């Protein structure tokens, strides 16, 4: 294995995907053989509303360079309103982390439906590029 | 042959001995592991010493305990379930409840594990010599009582005391520990074993009822007898008055207490009852002693 140098450093991104849409979207991307960067590690969750801010913080502390939370589009939640509740948690947490000095693109959010294999691939590309630009997470990560 | 309590024979002054770090565990190997109960929550670990020197230095009496240590998970205290007469091994029965105990349940045979001990005072086995012994246990607190019984049943020691009566209760027959050994004890004529459960099943031949009531029913004589009591707090609470009613004086009733512990050597605080530390001054206390302490247990 090559050692991690600045030039060939690849970000590690943790993606929390809603079981009912984004996870299926990722599946679709896979079965349709749509390419996307291999930088994500996926954790399937029952709903984007399940995301406890502790999960996101724990991921960053544990050495992830970026976190993505992806759920169903508004109105499509399997549990009717889970993604709406999640949206408020996401909005406030995102703003708060930025206030504290965590860079804007470290933690990102998306809506990806089960039919959006292409969008899933785009989101992962964008997030990976964003985090790449930021470089490895230096603050907060446990040394 | 009084056994030296591991902790107690090191009384040279702190000034002139090299400082030994009491927080460092010594390595042991998990030789054998066995699930004890039908709920699969209790597992007995049989450990052997990795280093001969440490085995030779390890002397204990029934009722003492060890801190079992799993690197990465932490430590937790457990009473030694084997008897000092079982050479080369130490047994512990672990109730799966928290982080460390779960790890101990997952430990595979052959794995290495750390222990610190023996810790605490143990049962006053010298005091029991020439007397009758009444042993009352409930649930999985039976571990150190098993050590005590096995110690006195050993051919070298059996003549040291007179009669042994054991009352052992559990919620269900499947939850009794050390079942094979209990069968052996039942066959002996120099020990009276009374087993009881809260709910029997169709094969159950012992008693059905709570330990305090069974004690009352069989009413052992208190004369020349020491009682040793170990079990969940609720059992202790109701058994103690029955012993008093049977005319056991406080000085002749002993119990082993459990508390949240960390260091096991009387430094970290937390396990004190009044000015005594359960880890260092206990875990075995006579009722005469407990009675004078705040009811912080």
């Amino acid at each position, binding site marked *: 294995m090559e050692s991690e140098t600045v030039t060939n450093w690849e970000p590690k991104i943790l993606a929390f995907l809603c079981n009912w849409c984004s996870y299926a979207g990722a599946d679709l991307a896979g079965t349709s053989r749509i390419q996307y960067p291999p930088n994500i590690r996926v954790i399937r969750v029952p709903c984007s509303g399940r995301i406890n*801010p*502790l999960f996101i*913080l*724990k991921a960053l*502390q544990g050495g992830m360079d970026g976190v993505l939370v992806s759920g169903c589009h*508004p*109105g499509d939640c399997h549990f009717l*309103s889970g993604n*709406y*509740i999640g*949206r*408020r*948690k*996401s*909005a*406030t*947490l*995102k*703003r*708060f*982390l*930025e*206030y*504290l*000095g*965590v*860079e804007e693109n470290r933690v*990102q*959010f*998306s*809506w990806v439906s089960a039919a959006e294999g292409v969008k899933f691939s785009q*989101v992962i590309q*964008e*997030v990976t590029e964003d985090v790449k630009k930021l470089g490895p997470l230096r*603050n*907060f*990560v*446990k*040394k | 042959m009084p056994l030296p309590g591991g902790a107690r024979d090191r009384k040279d002054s702190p000034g002139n001995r090299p400082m030994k770090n009491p927080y460092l565990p010594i390595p042991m190997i998990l030789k054998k592991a066995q699930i004890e109960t039908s709920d699969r929550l209790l597992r007995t670990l049989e450990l052997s010493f990795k280093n001969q020197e440490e085995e030779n230095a390890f002397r204990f009496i029934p009722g003492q305990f060890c801190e079992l240590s799993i690197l990465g998970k932490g430590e937790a205290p457990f009473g030694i379930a084997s008897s000092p007469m079982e050479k080369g091994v130490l047994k512990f029965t672990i109730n799966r409840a*928290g*982080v460390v105990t779960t790890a101990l349940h997952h430990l595979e045979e052959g794995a290495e594990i750390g222990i610190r001990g023996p810790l605490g005072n143990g049962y006053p086995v010298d005091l029991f010599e020439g007397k009758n012994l009444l042993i009352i246990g409930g649930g999985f607190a039976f571990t150190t009582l098993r050590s005590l019984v096995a110690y006195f049943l050993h051919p070298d020691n059996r003549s040291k005391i007179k009669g042994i009566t054991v009352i052992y209760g559990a919620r269900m027959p499947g939850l009794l520990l050390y079942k094979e050994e209990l069968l052996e004890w039942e066959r002996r004529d120099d020990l009276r074993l009374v087993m009881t459960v809260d709910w029997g099943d169709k094969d159950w031949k012992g008693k059905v009822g709570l330990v305090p009531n069974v004690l009352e029913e069989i009413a052992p004589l208190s004369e020349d007898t020491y009682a040793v009591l170990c079990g969940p707090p609720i059992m202790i609470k109701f058994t103690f008055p029955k012993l008093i009613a049977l005319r056991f004086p406080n000085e002749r009733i002993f119990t082993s207490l459990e508390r949240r512990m960390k260091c096991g050597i009387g430094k970290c605080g937390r396990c004190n009852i009044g000015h005594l530390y359960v880890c260092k001054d206990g875990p075995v206390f006579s009722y005469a002693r407990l009675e004078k302490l705040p009811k912080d247990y």
Partner: protein
Amino acid sequence: MIQEKLREKAKELLSKKEVDLIIGFSEWTLPLRTTPVFIRTPEGTESLAWNSFCENNLATYLHKFGRFKVGIVVKGCDARSVVALSLEKRFPNHRPLLIGVPCQRMVDRKKVKKAVKGEILQAVEQGDLLVVKGEDFEVTLKRDDFLYSVCRSCTHRTPNQADFLIGDPVEEFPLDEAHPDVSEFEGKTPEERWGSFEKEISRCIRCYACREACPMCYCTECFVDSTRPKWIEKSLSPSDLAFYHIVRAYHQTGRCSGCGACERACPMDIRLTHLTQKLNQEVKDLYGFETGIQPEVPPPLSTFHPEDEQGFIK
């Protein structure tokens, strides 16, 4: 005088047995301070005090006395905490009776101590002035120059939700527009902000005084104490300290009344209120919510609106 009226009301409630106990403030051994008191007899109400040193948010005690009918002395911020707790259904047995006092804004004892040299032995309020005496000094200070910063920005000093109001409502206006410490912090670069945050909390000794002083921190098991899962370690690594302070503050989102009890409780003088004030600004900005103002409106993070802001979502 407010203090007299307060004692009268408390006495009346206890005499008529409308409450089992009164939680209030009393003078105690140190100058510039009061201490919480728990009064059960009408005579005991003589020790109730009201002054500019009533800094504790007594609502934090309501969890302890859930079985009793409690009368509690509250400032504007304290009352709003009680409303927030009530929304979270913390009073299944008896809703506490609020004895509200319109707040004159509280004096920051640490600021006063820094303004004089030597130990303060006595501090007396005289109108807008504060006369501070030591062994070899006596100075008169302008009270308003020594207020807690959250009090300076406060626009809800009158506890409108109170069952009884002692004294007249006060005119609501901030001495400082918005929260200067939040804007000051926002003026920095992200790197500076993290650095400043990390430096500030590096003094933390994890005594959890900030948590315990807060009426909204009542979880049976705090996430820091959980072993399964274990979220953070118990030592003082910068990362774990940051984790604790981020989550402690964030858990107050939409629940914080901005009383500043967390910061006042800190023995290490860590600036904490700008964190929760920022969150308060966020929920106001995003969802138009202010803690404890409208007793019927659910906490913002337990509800939603289909049209909520989502520009940040891809």
